[in-house]
């Protein structure tokens, strides 16, 4: 049985002391991550491995928490630039999340139309959610039309953070921003709802790559921003396995908690159970054990 590869790229140079992002270093980290994940010598080959020029890519970011605990615009835009270099037309890339206000607040440049890179929320006039319910296991939701009708593949660009109800918020939980009723699915630590949602064929079949923004990591107090518990981690995490990536993400949160003398997620009663549920036969979304994950850590 093959292992899931999860690649962590870190750099001490990507963030300044004031947490400003060095775009050049970040771009090199992304290239290295893509190459390491795929085994290609050139990141452009990696992009072509995952996507064809005919694809319309949805780059799903997470902006709910505002500045400090959301996907950094520099991160998403740097990846979009690499996509362009890999043969994807700018007009075929849509950066998206739940709402325009949240995107704008974090600093994403909204652009609804035209040939350039587009960026907008599901709440944009004329977009919205599906009219029909999309049901799977315990979840029944209206799904963003950006995911259903405006794109055919997704690149999941979550931010890694602690979550006071779910344990962590990363790859799997990011799709709560793609449905109309996420508030209904936070009970019991989001278990099994987060796994159920990700097993929805409309989501599962569209996702090929997850690139997690771990430049700064909210290791306690999440999902909102609390500067005292926000670490300049200087990392990105790449995988094709959202479960494996979340498993590694939860390890990072625990490491940061331990480093600061805080109890682990498990000891805080916040073990993200949904990650393990996502591995069962009903979901089959990925792997969540050290034995089944090939974790590669590289410093650049």
């Amino acid at each position, binding site marked *: 049985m093959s292992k899931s590869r999860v690649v962590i790229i870190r750099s001490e140079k990507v963030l300044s002391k004031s947490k400003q992002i060095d775009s050049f270093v970040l771009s090199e980290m992304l290239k290295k991550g893509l190459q390491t994940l795929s085994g290609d010598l050139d990141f452009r080959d990696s992009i072509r491995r995952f996507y064809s020029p005919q694809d319309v890519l949805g780059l799903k970011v997470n902006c709910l928490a505002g500045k400090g605990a959301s996907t950094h615009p520099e991160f998403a835009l740097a990846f979009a630039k690499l996509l362009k270099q890999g043969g994807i037309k700018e007009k075929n890339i849509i950066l998206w999340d739940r709402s325009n206000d949240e995107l704008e607040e974090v600093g994403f440049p909204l652009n609804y139309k035209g040939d350039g890179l587009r960026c907008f929320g599901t709440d944009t006039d004329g977009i919205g959610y599906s*009219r029909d319910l999309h049901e799977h296991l315990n979840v029944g939701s209206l799904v963003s039309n950006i995911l259903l009708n405006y794109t055919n593949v997704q690149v999941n660009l979550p931010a890694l953070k602690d979550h*006071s*109800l779910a344990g962590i918020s990363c790859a799997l939980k990011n799709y709560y921003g793609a449905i109309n009723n996420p508030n*209904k699915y936070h009970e019991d630590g989001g278990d099994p709802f987060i796994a159920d949602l990700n097993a929805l064929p409309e989501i599962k079949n569209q996702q090929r790559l997850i690139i997690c923004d771990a430049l700064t990591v909210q290791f306690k107090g999440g999902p*909102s921003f609390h500067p005292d518990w926000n670490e300049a981690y200087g990392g990105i995490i790449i995988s094709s396995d959202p479960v494996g990536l979340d498993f590694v993400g939860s390890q990072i949160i625990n490491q940061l908690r331990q480093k600061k003398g805080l109890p682990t997620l498990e000891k805080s009663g916040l073990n993200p159970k949904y990650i393990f549920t996502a591995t069962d036969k009903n979901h089959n979304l990925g792997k969540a054990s050290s034995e089944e994950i090939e974790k590669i850590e590289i410093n650049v």
Partner: protein
Amino acid sequence: MKSLKRREFFKYSLAGAGGALCSNLITKIPFMAIPDTAYALSSTGKLSHVEAKYYKKLEHKEIECQLCPRKCKVGDRERGYCGVRENQNGIYYTLVYGLSCSFHQDPIEKKPFFHFLPGTDAFSIATAGCNLNCKFCQNWEISQARPEQTYNLELSPQSVVESALSGNCPSIAYTYSEPTVFYEYMLDCAKSGRKKGIKSVMVSAGFIQPEPLIELCKELDAVKIDLKAFNEKYYQEICRGKLQPVLDTLKELKRIGIWYEIVYLMVPTLNDNMDDIKKMCDWMLKDLGPDVPVHFTRFTPLYLLKNLPPTPVSSLEQARKIALESGLKFVYIGNVPGHEGESTYCPKCRKILIGRYGFTITQMNLQKGNCKFCGEKIPGVWA
């Protein structure tokens, strides 16, 4: 933010094309009931910003909602389970105050209230949101939506009262979704209505904490409680709630002395066990007394339970028989127009007191709250 003209709002409402407005709720739009000066239409984006009445502040900008038994702990920038209350920098706000996503002039029998001002209309309003997620919800397009996903009419409490008055409605009904989640709005509407002689009724699942319930009942005139089942498993699996708080609510209503009626939506295979029905009726008789009206209503396949058939009428009849034999005096069958179980019978002389066909009154044999045949006093609010 989208803006809609009034005409467009009604068009969306009627066609059900507004994304979240349930067209089957809007069967009779009271055009004349909405004062021209009273409205401003709002759709996605514009939400209210009124501090919630019942919550407590926790550390690190977290809050705990104290409105319903769920007691959501909500982090900064997050919302509670209902989807209509949001923590903004450690302060909890209702986002739906004055934002009605559904409004309609309904027969009071539609709620259903059978012992409360029969034959009158109630000006009925709702906002988005619910603190449960019942798989059979007939209004899920609004109850399970967040307020930015519904088309909302800005309607102040004063305007709600004016609308009721101009529509000749003696009551305002808070209904369709779950009024508990628009608590502050409902409370202020009820206060405003009372000053003008308009009564208020709440149509609710009863999943509310005692303290807000007690405050609310001072302003309400009647409550209808949907008792979803008489077992915890059903509440957890089908409704994502709990039974005991609802039973506590019913007992509290009895203690307070406000008029209330109970609806039991019977869902085939899920809550139609007659042993449970018998236990429930025995509990009602013991804890609530024989006078509380109980409506066994027919399920229609919708939302997440489209795989089940409508309730067989025979199941409803069996439940009604059990309830009557248990000693409950006023037991009805609902959503079966023309059924004899729609009418009210005198518990003493057994004659028809109020004949009904659907929501229409066909006979009225009550005189000042008494049976006109035998003089028996009938419990309810009759004038």
